[in-house]
């Protein structure tokens, strides 16, 4: 497996941009999801009201997280669920491996869960000698290809139909086909056996409801239903922020999440899981273990600005809407969570040192904030993180900081500002041809930003007469 790193975001992005197959796949998928989301949102008259309501519920949860968590645990325990608390990814994986080993288990089926991607659970399970199979079709494709998801809800968004056919031919031995139904049926047939044989099923959690102790998981393929009901032991991995106060809150979030994610009015399946199989029930696991993951979340909770990152319901709408994601896809970010929300969450989860490029990987256009169902101000968070990065001087070029110091000096004194502009106007004489600065070759090293700009665009030069000069000579006397 060749995982990209966030540290090389710039190079990753450049490679992605020359991958025409990738860009074609991204263009189709992100625009399709974008259109569907808009249509689904517009089909509800109270969309904006729902967004505000969802956000206020999340804000309340985050302000009283301790209380809601206690309530959630108490109600779920009363129905037979067992809770485990993990400070970080390693601890979560350790708990899960031990739970499986203690039951003599070996075969694991997993349903799609970004939280377990975050902890790199599969690597830990395999290292412990377990056999783990992803049962979501997209995740299954990614697992076969030995890759990582490139989207929060569409893990194989970067793959074309043809690439998937080639993969299935190589890995599952079927003849090449461009028939999506055949490809799906092949995966389904292979996965059925795995479900039947599995000792343990591992899932994520979309919402944990404090009032009733219920876990809600949404999906379209039925694999989550099987993962959580067929094996005798179900392990659910849940970020500590995913709790909701009341059962009635589900109404708000079930309207927002599918519409924002895939543009569906409702997902095909919603599994409400309340504890273990009750004595009179026909199905359900004997054991339910809920692993509660912190992994940096309480740090995010502590700061009033970063706190809103925890309102995220992982719908992926901001990825589809992001002009940067639309061009480069998810792998270039080199992080589990890609796109705008990934650029916000990742540095907070794993620290700024290796991720300092991500908050800058945005034009701050605000399309993410516009589509976010819980109104997270992602541009504000990106700016906050940029501030943290420059103040901690993490991977910041000294020359850039110096340039901004000089810039601030110039902008604080009109005469320096005017003089610098004049000097720039004279120096640019070396570069201006036909009223513009074209592609630079020899002199580009003089000013790297100039070289970067003119690599793909001509530059409008500084004018010989500034507005303020024209104000003096043409406009002022008219008063």
């Amino acid at each position, binding site marked *: 497996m060749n995982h990209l790193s966030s540290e090389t975001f710039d190079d990753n*992005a*450049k490679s992605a*941009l020359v991958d025409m197959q990738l860009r074609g796949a991204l263009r189709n998928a992100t625009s399709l999801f974008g259109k569907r989301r808009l249509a689904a949102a517009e089909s509800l008259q109270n969309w904006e009201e729902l967004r505000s309501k969802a956000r206020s519920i999340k804000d309340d949860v985050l302000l009283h997280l301790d209380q809601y968590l206690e309530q959630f645990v108490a109600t779920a325990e009363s129905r037979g669920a067992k809770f485990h608390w993990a400070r970080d990814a390693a601890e979560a994986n350790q708990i899960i491996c031990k739970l499986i080993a203690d039951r003599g288990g070996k075969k694991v089926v997993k349903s799609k869960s970004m939280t377990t991607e975050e902890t790199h659970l599969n690597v830990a399970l395999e290292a412990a000698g377990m056999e783990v199979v992803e049962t979501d079709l997209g995740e299954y494709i990614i697992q076969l290809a030995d890759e990582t998801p490139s989207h929060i809800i569409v893990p194989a968004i970067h793959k074309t139909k043809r690439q998937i056919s080639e993969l299935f031919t190589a890995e599952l031995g079927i003849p090449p086909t461009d028939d999506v139904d055949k490809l799906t049926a092949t995966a389904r047939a292979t996965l059925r056996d795995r479900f039947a044989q599995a000792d343990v099923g591992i899932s994520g959690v979309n919402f944990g409801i404090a009032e009733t102790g219920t876990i809600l998981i949404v999906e379209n393929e039925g694999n989550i239903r099987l993962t959580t009901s067929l094996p005798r032991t179900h392990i659910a991995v849940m970020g500590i922020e995913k709790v909701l106060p009341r059962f009635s809150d589900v109404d708000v979030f079930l309207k927002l999440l599918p519409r924002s994610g895939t543009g569906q009015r409702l997902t095909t399946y919603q599994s409400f899981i309340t504890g273990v199989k009750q004595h009179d029930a026909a199905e359900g696991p004997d054991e339910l273990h809920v692993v509660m993951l912190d992994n940096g979340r309480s740090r995010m909770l502590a700061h009033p600005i970063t706190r809103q990152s925890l309102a995220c319901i992982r719908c992926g709408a901001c990825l589809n809407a992001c*002009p*940067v994601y*639309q*061009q*480069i896809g998810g792998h270039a970010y080199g992080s589990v969570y890609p796109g705008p929300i990934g650029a916000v969450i990742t540095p907070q989860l794993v620290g700024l040192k290796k991720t300092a490029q991500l*908050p*800058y*990987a*945005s*034009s*701050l*256009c*605000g*399309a993410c904030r*516009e589509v976010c169902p819980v109104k997270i101000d992602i541009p504000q968070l990106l*700016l906050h993180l*940029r*501030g*943290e*990065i*420059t*103040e901690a001087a993490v991977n910041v070029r000294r020359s*850039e900081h110096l340039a*901004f*110091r000089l*810039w*601030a000096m*110039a*902008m*604080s004194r*009109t005469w320096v*500002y005017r003089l610098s*502009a004049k000097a720039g106007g004279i120096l640019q004489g070396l570069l201006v041809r036909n009223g513009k600065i*074209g592609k630079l070759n020899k002199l580009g090293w003089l000013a*790297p*930003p100039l070289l*970067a*700009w003119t*690599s*793909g*665009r*001509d*530059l*409008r*030069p*500084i*004018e010989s*007469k*500034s*507005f*303020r000069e*024209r*104000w003096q000579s*043409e*406009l002022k006397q*008219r*008063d």
Partner: protein
Amino acid sequence: MLVSLFVTCLVDQLWSSVGVSTVEVLRRVGCEVQFDERQTCCSQPAFNTGYRDEARQVARRFIEIYESSKAEAIVTPSGSCAAMVHHLPELFSADERWQKRAHAIADKTYELSSFLVRVLKCEDVGASWSGRVTWHDACHGLRDLNIKTEPRKLISKVKGTEFVEMDNADSCCGFGGTFSVKYPEISVAILDQKIEAIERAKVDAVISGDASCLMQIGGRLSRKGSDVKVMHIAELLASQM
């Protein structure tokens, strides 16, 4: 109405005709325009790149300059710079006194098209220009200040001008300030989507409310040898042919 012009550093140095046009339009609709020659920048480049101290230094001076004016409104031919002024209170979140002063300035700062339509209730500024045009929604004007219908209303009243919507008029042009030079390849890849939409619209000119977007779009059109013009809305509204 007495209006104080914030021309923006970009227009001042690179695109003076936008500033001149802004003054002409404002005077035509009956405003008295003043221009404080001490002005430089709103602090946005530093703020957006994460240099908050430097941004505050420049922002304080900006606030002081406009506090000294008796003008009822501060008008700028830029949605992005107007949006930055509206963000100034955030920049001073740890300093109540400066935050209050920032709020007072932000409350009377307007982008040109929204000032004309919302404050002056004026949609026809008596302009005429012959040609087919489309509008690019600059992100900060659109999403921070909710400017969407105002420029379209103004353009539709320009005599001789045919207005057409391009595909995804509200999607980013890829400029993003220092983003455009930190990640020039991504910036240009985003830009090319915009260029394709402009080409499909078959227009003589693409109009926008921000010189920065127009510099980005125009720079690529020029590199590709296109004859589509880029024009600031102030220039279109000032035109009388």
